[in-house]
């Protein structure tokens, strides 16, 4: 039983990271109908920025964290402007390829700048554990869970209570109609990318104590975030986080209870099952095509 709870908590912590990456996918997908295959690599880059600020320049953890988030938000806007905006409105496949290319580029450049070693960021909560009875929970895992909850609450308030959030929801419903209503759609999309890159950076920095940051981490984790997004229903913000947590728990349980090898495959088996049985996901909308 104790093992089960331990696995559950580490699964939820890992799942929160998947959820945060998936959240980035979903934000961009909802706003622009672009699926950003480079989302995991944005996360990786965010982790490296934080590492540079905290580990190499010796800044305070929170200052470095904020610096990385701001840098990556700007980078997200730049990526949108250079790679995505010129091809908005073209077939989805072209856009997918463009973001795959962007991911390739980011991975290799990060490898060239920071090398291919593993890096670790010292955090205020990388040491220490919380003991409840005989249950031992590491602070770094709890910090991921807490941060995910805070981020989701902030995003929820932002989307439902602010004018900018409403504008974003409007342009995600119908870009053309939003444009006619006087919403500056281009600027809105650019801000969505900034938010998505910032969320990815949070995921990267929080992840750093659990698995190390290296230049390929984005590919591995970014692809795991797809099952999360699909399970939650592509295009649903709470769905992304719930899906992420479920995938994390499934992976962690499969690693513990099933023979070796199932751990890596389990998320994809779940993904295929969801696609076959309930393609709209847990929270997705089912829309019929009109001819």
């Amino acid at each position: 039983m104790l093992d089960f709870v331990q696995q559950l908590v580490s699964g939820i912590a890992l799942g929160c990271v998947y959820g945060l990456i998936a959240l980035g996918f979903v934000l961009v997908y909802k706003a622009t109908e672009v699926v950003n295959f480079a989302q995991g690599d944005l996360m990786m880059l965010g982790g490296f920025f934080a590492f540079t600020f905290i580990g190499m320049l010796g800044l305070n953890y929170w200052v470095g964290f904020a610096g990385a988030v701001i840098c990556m938000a700007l980078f997200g806007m730049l990526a949108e402007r250079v790679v995505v905006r010129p091809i908005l409105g073209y077939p989805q496949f072209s856009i997918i390829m463009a973001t795959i290319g962007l991911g390739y580029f980011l991975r290799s450049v990060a490898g060239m700048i920071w090398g291919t070693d593993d890096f670790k960021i010292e955090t205020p909560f990388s040491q220490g554990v919380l003991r409840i009875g005989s249950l031992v929970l590491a602070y770094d895992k709890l910090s991921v869970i807490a941060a995910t909850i805070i981020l989701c609450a902030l995003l929820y308030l932002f989307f439902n209570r602010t004018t900018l959030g409403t504008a974003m929801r409007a342009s995600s419903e119908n870009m053309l109609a939003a444009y006619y209503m006087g919403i500056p759609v281009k600027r809105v999309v650019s801000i969505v990318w900034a938010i998505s890159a910032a969320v990815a950076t949070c995921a990267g920095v929080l992840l750093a104590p659990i698995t190390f940051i290296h230049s390929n981490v984005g590919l591995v984790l970014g692809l795991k975030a797809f099952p999360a997004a699909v399970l939650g229903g592509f295009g649903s913000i709470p769905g992304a986080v719930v899906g992420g947590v479920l995938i994390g728990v499934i992976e962690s349980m499969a690693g513990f209870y099933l023979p070796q090898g199932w751990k890596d495959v389990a998320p994809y088996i779940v993904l295929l099952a969801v696609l076959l049985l309930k393609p709209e996901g847990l929270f997705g909308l089912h829309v019929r095509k009109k001819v």
Partner: protein
Amino acid sequence: MRFLFKTDYEDDIRLFPHSGYVYSYGLLLAVLLIAPYVLSSYLMSQLVFVCIYATVGVGLMILTGFTGQASLGHAAFLAIGAYTAAYLQQFNVPFPVYFLAAGLLTGVVGALVGFPALRLQGIYLVIATISFAFIVEEIMARWESVTNGNEGMRVKAMQLLGTTVSRDGPTFYYLCLAVLVLTIVGTLNLLRSPTGRAFVAIRDSETAARSMGINVALYKVKSFAISAGITGFAGVLFAHKLSFISPEMFTLQLSIEFIIVILIGGTFSLHGAVLGAIFLVMIDPFLTYLKDDMPGVIAGAAATLGAGSERAGHIQDAVAAFASANGLKGAIYGVIIVVFVLFEPLGLYGRWLKIKLFFQLFPLYKRATFKRQKIYVKSERNR
């Protein structure tokens, strides 16, 4: 400019629309046939890879380019073909038998993937094929009694008609070339048959195709099976060329390379598969050349532009360090993909058509001829 006067349907679907095609392709074939006696062994080896990649490209083109079903899982089909060959070879099965068996088995697996894929569209299909490829990769790594796990399998030299065919020799190259040519001719024939027209109809509008009486599900599964089968044939040749296969060769990276092949070549014509394969395979020797020779060339240029010898030496060192940096190849790949998607969406073959049209219409060429239409209405979500 040549005007083709078509009087009946047979004229419209001819493989060679006019005699010029026969001469130019005949010339190309002749050049390819004498290539082993002219080119260095390294270039010959690259040419074999061009044939294999182009075969996969043609297979992928049927699915992605002509039926409109994106796949990022073709490395898995290649793996199935390669492993079938390696496994059957252990029991002294002759080459023609396991070659056909690999293609058939991969085709069946392709059809099995095609059935669930019927319900999926666009991005969901891409994600599903990625997952399929991951699962196959994991099976290859874990099913040790058949695949020998992560240790990989050795592939013995090919036995054909009682002789041993070396993987570096001209015979192996001719075999790969023959497979490629047969695949291309077969695919061209397929595409001008009712099946091929049904594929294109499904690509252009599934709803319209269905209302014209096309059994969309059947043709999608057919397209998956044919595409996978061709990739399986290529897998056998791939295994023989490398003479050693292991699961980590058939990763998502390879699937992306196959997509790059058709994307760079141009997704609307079989020419694209071949041009893309040439581009992708030949980029390696080009980068090696860049790595070895560019620092000297740039330093020389700097020296002639008036930089001092010490300065030029610095420049040479800096460029050499940059060129040999880890991951430069990946960065160049990334830039190439993005540049092609942004600026040359029709690929290399599209560029060739543009140049050809420019000279045919000489003063009257309009750039808008090849302009794509942008659609801002969110159609793909509600499909």
